[in-house]
């Protein structure tokens, strides 16, 4: 897997996306192969949407949401964990490795954390 491998990052509107915006404002760079997608809450994702990213050629799918216990909608990141578990099981059967799909969080407005987590995820894909 190379650095150009496409990575889809689902960001929740409140923390993940806020981190992305802050990273942009601070001109913190991340690889151009990253495709961020904003959703209102990660709890609204489904295993179908996550697997669709793989179907369309993503080498990795990262979900970035609110910190534990701080979901804007209270239970969204708990729901996201359930969705992730289902998607992981299906992706595993299809032959995708565990490190190709991950759920993580960033604090609202923390651009540096956003960039670090995205870079770490890509490094994990490359086995570094």
């Amino acid at each position: 897997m190379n650095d150009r491998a496409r990575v889809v990052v689902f960001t929740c509107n409140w923390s993940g996306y806020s981190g992305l915006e802050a990273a942009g404002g601070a001109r913190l760079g991340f690889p151009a192969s990253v495709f961020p997608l904003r959703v209102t809450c990660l709890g609204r994702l489904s295993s179908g949407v996550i697997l669709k990213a793989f179907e369309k050629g993503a080498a990795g799918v990262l979900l970035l949401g609110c910190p534990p216990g701080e979901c804007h909608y209270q239970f969204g990141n708990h729901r996201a964990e359930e969705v992730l578990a289902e998607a992981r099981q299906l992706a595993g059967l299809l032959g995708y490795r565990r490190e190709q799909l991950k759920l993580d969080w960033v604090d609202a407005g923390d651009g540096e954390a956003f960039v670090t987590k995205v870079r770490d995820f890509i490094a994990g894909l490359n086995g570094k």
Partner: protein
Amino acid sequence: MERLPSVMSQNRVWYCLDCGKCSAVCPITRWETRQYTSPRLLVEKAVQGHPDEVLDDPLFWSCLTCKRCSELCPSGVYFSEFLRDARAMAQEKGQKGECSHSEVIQVWGRIMAHANPAQDRLGWIDGDLRVSHDSDVLYFVGCLPYYDALFKKIGCEGIEIARAAIRILNHLGIEPQVLADERCCGHDQLWEGDWETFQALARLNLEQIQASGAQQIVTTCPECARTLKLDYPRLVGGHPLRVFHLTEFLAQPGIGDRLNLKAEDMSPTVTYQDPCRLGRHLGVYDAPRQLMDRLGLHRIEMGRTGKASLCCGTSCWTQCGQVSKNIQVERLREAKATGAECLVTACVKCQIHFKCAQSDPALREELGIDIRDLTTLLAERLGDGTKAEPS
């Protein structure tokens, strides 16, 4: 849709007499309340040359292709097949039905067809289950590992059905082959008009099936059985293997009669749901019933049974909604009315759809009936060793 007339000819649509027998039995016609729809009306729209109206008809995507209408049609119109072929034309134009479960089932089908991953799908073969690489019999698992992941939460037996099938075959001294990279058979893709994915899946499966050297394919999914038996040879490529649903396989003289089944004192009273693909599509009605009788189960038939059986309400994971739910509730009420303790079926999808309807808290008590696959019922009643001589 310019090819619609030729699809109508292939499927005898021009022969419709407008008699309406199909409409009297169509489960969708009965429950679709938003707009009147029926097989007869859809055919009339096609015959009168209004392809756009055909496409807009609610039945176009929601038809279960259960073939109930074809059982009664005096003109032999292949209505289900007509829609299957017309849907392929509609998909070429970019139209499709509404996918349930966030399209995840269609997505994994397309990944298997095009992304070429190395699946990790045999983790369930453990313990005392025995498989081999050179058996005459190939067990085609189908999407059971995937349904297990998706529907365990509603109590679907899932991969237990596959384990049970291997246990039954092992009991008969057969250590079947299983394919490490078997793909979805493509049944749903074919019937919802995704012709491209169906063909890709079929070719990948045919390559592996032919390379296996097996002579017979056994499945526990009626849809896989139909697709491998009828659709692969007709539409993609022939293969010399004989295809059986497990119940059919066990019904053969010298095979099923070697099963050593434990008779139980307190066997539950059961009723049987004929899966559309096993019954009306493949004509297998007696084999599962014989097996239930051999298990000593007291079987009570529902009012609509055999050729007149009612479908489980959803097909191809498409257009699931109020109409599907109403059909499922109607059928579960019918099953409950027999007084049986257990609804037995031979298709994992019937089980998933009925268990989904049962998960409605408002209906849980009213529709509460145990639902089991015949395969797992059989496997848990296997005795030690086979019968020495066929009876």
